[in-house]
C-alpha cells in the first residue's frame, strides 16, 4: 500500500521527463505536495504581513551581495578567526575531496558511528555512502532525514525532506524498519524516534552538521533548526565536523539577524525557529560539555566557477530557504524526486547545471513555465527566471559558453530552423506571401506535432493572417471616411 514496500527507486536528472510523467500520474505524490505547498505559501504570506518585506528583502540581497563582493577576503578572515578560536579549517575543491577530508578525520578518531544534523552540502557530495563504504555508519538525526534514510530515499525538499510521505506511509516505514507498532498518532511516532535517536547521539563518535551562516568577523558557525538535533549533533559527540559551501560566509555578526528573519519566514512561515545555535569554538579549558575538536570543511564544487560571471553570480546569494520550490507550480505537481538532483525546484534548476554539467541536467532549466513566482518570493531577490532563461541559452550554445556542457542541446535542425525563421521574419515580402500561402494550405497542417500535441490539438493557421485582416480593416475604414 505504500512507498515503504515499493522497490527503491533511483532518480536522475537525465530521466526528468519520464520521472515527471510518473509523478504526475501518482495521486499520492500529487496530493502530498499540493497540501504541503498550499500550507507553506499561506503561512509565509501571514508571517510577513506586518513587515516591510521589500525593504527587508533589499537588505538581505544587499548583505549577500556584499559578502560575495568580498568573498576571497572574507573566507581568509573566516579561516583566521576560526583558527584563532581553535576551529580547524579545511578546504575542498569538490565533493570527493571533502568526503575524503571528513573520512580521514573520522578515521583518525577511529570512529565507527557518525550522527548527522541536516546538511544539504553533505547530500550534494553523497557523504553517507562514502562513509559507509569506509565502514563508518552515518545516521541522519533530523526527523525527516531519518525517515527518508530509513526508507532508503533521498530528501524531496531542502527544508522538509520527507514532505513526499504522508502519515500512513511514515507509520509503515517506522513499523518495518524500527519495529514499533503501526500508529497514525504523530506524537507517538515522534516519541519513538526521539528514544531511538537519543541512544545514537550518546554512542556517536563524530557529529556532522551543515552551516547556515559562517561569520567572518568572529569565526562563528550559525545553525538554524527546530528539533534540537542540530544542537545535539554539535554538542554531544566528542568531535564536530561542520561542512559548508564557500558562499555561506557573511561579513559581520550584524548581517545575521536580517538573513535569519528572512530565512525562517520564507522557509516555513515561522517568525523564528526554536533554536539559533552559534558555535565559535571547541570546548574550552574548564567547560564541561561540547566537542573537544571542531572542524570546518569549506567546499567549492563549482561555486568558484559560478562566481566568475556577473549574471550567474546571483545564484550564490541563495540562503537555502526553499520558498522558490514552495511557490513553484511545476515543483508542486511533480515533487522533489522528479528532478533527480540534490537541490530540486527552481533553485536546483539554476544551481545543479553548474555542479553536474548541462549534459546531465539539460531538462531542468526548461522545467519551468517562467511564471516568475520563484523570483518574486526569493528573500534575497535572486532573479531565478532570468537565470533559467540564461541556462536555456547556454544549453543551446547561445550564451557565453562558460557553463559546463554548454551547447549540449544544440541541434543542426533546430539551429537552421531558427536561422530560416530569422530570414523570413526580416524579409516582409517573402513573409507576407508565405503566410498567405500557409492560410490557403491550412488543411495540410499535420495533426501530430510531437510533445505539443501530447495533451493539445494541433494549432490551425487562420485562413487570413492578422496582418492581412488589419490591412483590410484599415482600407475599409479609409473608404468609409471618404464617403462621409
Amino acid at each position, binding site marked *: 500500500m505504500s512507498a515503504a514496500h515499493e522497490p527503491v527507486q533511483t532518480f536522475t536528472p537525465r530521466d526528468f521527463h519520464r520521472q515527471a510523467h510518473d509523478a504526475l500520474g501518482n495521486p499520492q505524490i500529487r496530493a502530498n505536495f499540493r497540501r504541503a505547498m498550499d500550507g507553506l505559501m499561506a503561512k509565509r504570506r501571514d508571517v510577513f504581513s506586518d513587515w516591510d518585506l521589500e525593504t527587508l528583502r533589499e537588505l538581505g540581497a544587499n548583505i549577500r551581495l556584499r559578502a560575495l563582493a568580498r568573498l576571497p577576503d572574507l573566507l581568509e578572515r573566516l579561516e583566521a578567526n576560526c583558527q584563532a578560536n581553535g576551529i580547524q579549517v579545511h578546504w575542498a575543491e569538490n565533493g570527493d575531496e571533502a568526503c575524503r577530508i571528513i573520512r580521514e578525520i573520522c578515521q583518525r578518531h577511529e570512529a565507527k558511528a557518525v550522527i548527522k544534523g541536516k546538511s544539504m552540502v553533505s547530500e550534494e557530495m553523497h557523504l553517507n555512502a562514502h562513509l559507509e563504504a569506509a565502514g563508518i555508519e552515518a545516521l541522519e538525526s533530523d526527523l525527516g532525514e531519518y525517515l527518508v534514510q530509513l526508507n532508503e530515499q533521498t530528501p524531496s525538499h531542502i527544508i522538509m525532506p520527507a514532505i513526499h510521505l504522508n502519515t500512513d506511509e511514515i507509520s509503515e516505514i517506522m513499523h518495518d524498519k524500527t519495529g514499533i507498532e503501526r500508529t497514525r498518532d504523530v506524537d507517538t511516532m515522534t516519541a519513538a524516534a526521539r528514544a531511538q535517536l537519543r541512544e545514537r547521539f550518546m554512542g556517536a563518535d563524530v557529529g556532522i552538521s551543515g552551516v547556515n551562516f559562517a561569520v567572518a568577523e568572529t569565526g562563528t558557525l550559525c545553525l538554524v533548526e527546530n528539533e534540537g538535533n542540530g544542537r545535539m549533533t554539535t554538542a554531544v559527540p566528542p568531535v564536530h565536523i561542520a561542512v559548508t559551501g564557500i558562499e555561506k560566509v557573511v561579513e559581520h*555578526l550584524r548581517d545575521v539577524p536580517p538573513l535569519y528573519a528572512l530565512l525562517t519566514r520564507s522557509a516555513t512561515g515561522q517568525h523564528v525557529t526554536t533554536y539559533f545555535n552559534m558555535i565559535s569554538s571547541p570546548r*574550552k579549558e574548564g567547560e*564541561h560539555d561540547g566537542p573537544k575538536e571542531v572542524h570546518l570543511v569549506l567546499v567549492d564544487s563549482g561555486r568558484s566557477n559560478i562566481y566568475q560571471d556577473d549574471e550567474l553570480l546571483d545564484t550564490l546569494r541563495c540562503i537555502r530557504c526553499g520558498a522558490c520550490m514552495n511557490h513553484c507550480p511545476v515543483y508542486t505537481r511533480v515533487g522533489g524526486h522528479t528532478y533527480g538532483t540534490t537541490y530540486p525546484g527552481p533553485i536546483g534548476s539554476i544551481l545543479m547545471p553548474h555542479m553536474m554539467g548541462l549534459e546531465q541536467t539539460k531538462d531542468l532549466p526548461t522545467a519551468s513555465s517562467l511564471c516568475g513566482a520563484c523570483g518574486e518570493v526569493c528573500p534575497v531577490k535572486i532573479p531565478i527566471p532570468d537565470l533559467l532563461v540564461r541556462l536555456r541559452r547556454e544549453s543551446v550554445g547561445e550564451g557565453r559558453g562558460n557553463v559546463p556542457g554548454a551547447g549540449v542541446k544544440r541541434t543542426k535542425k533546430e539551429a537552421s530552423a531558427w536561422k530560416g525563421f530569422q530570414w523570413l521574419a526580416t524579409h516582409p515580402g517573402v513573409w507576407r506571401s508565405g503566410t498567405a500561402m500557409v492560410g490557403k494550405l491550412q488543411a495540410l497542417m499535420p495533426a501530430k506535432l510531437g510533445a505539443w500535441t501530447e495533451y493539445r490539438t494541433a494549432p490551425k493557421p487562420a485562413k487570413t493572417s492578422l496582418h492581412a485582416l488589419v490591412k483590410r480593416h484599415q482600407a475599409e475604414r479609409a473608404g468609409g471616411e471618404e464617403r462621409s
Partner: protein
Amino acid sequence: MSARDNILKRLRERADGPLTAPQSDFGVVTGRGWGQAERLARFERWITSVHGEVVHTSRDAWTSTLAEVLEAKGIRRLALGREHPVAAEARAALAERGVALIDADRDIEAWQREQFHDTEAGLTSTRGAIAETGSLWLWPTPDEPRLLSLVPPIHIAVLDADTIEDTFFDVIERHGWADDMPTNALLVSGPSKTADIEQTLAYGVHGPRELVVLVRNAEERV
C-alpha cells in the same frame, strides 16, 4: 597548489572583474521604540504562540514560584548550576523541598547517561530575551553547560523582565557580541518541535518537550 590556494586564486582572478560591495541600511531590523511593558507583552505573546509557558513572578518570590512549578509538574530531579545567583538561590530554596538537585557543572563524560535518562528538568539563567520573536538569549557557561537547556525533558529558564530587547539586531549591537563571542551562543524560542510528519506539529522531538519561562518582574506583579 593546495585546494585553498586554487579556490582563492579563482575567486581573486574573477573573469568579469572585481565586484563593488554595496552599503547596508539596517533600519528595517532595529528602532522599534517599544517600552518595557510592550516588550514584555510581545515576548510573551510570541513565546506562548510556539508552546512556551510563561509564569510571572518577582525577584523576591521567584524561588517559591519555582517550587510551585516543580510540584505542579511532578519534577523530582532537577539539574542546575551552582555559582550563578539563579542556581545558588534555587539550591538554597529547594534544599528542604524533597527535590533531588543534580549538579550540572560536571564533565559530561562522567554523567551522560544520568543526564539523558534520569534528569527530569534543567534550570538555567538567561542573559536576556528578544521581544520581536519571543526568544531567550543564553550563553552557556561551565556553571550552566550547553546540554543543560537541551537534554532534560523540561527546560525551566529564568528571565528578568528588564533584560528584554526589541530585536535580535539590538541584542547583538547593544551587548557587543561581535567583540566577545562565547563558545556557544543560543537563541531558544519554545520547546523542541518538528513538523516533518505530514506538517503535523509535534513537540519534544530531540530537545525539551516543555519550556517554562519564569519572568522576574522588578516589583510584585502576581
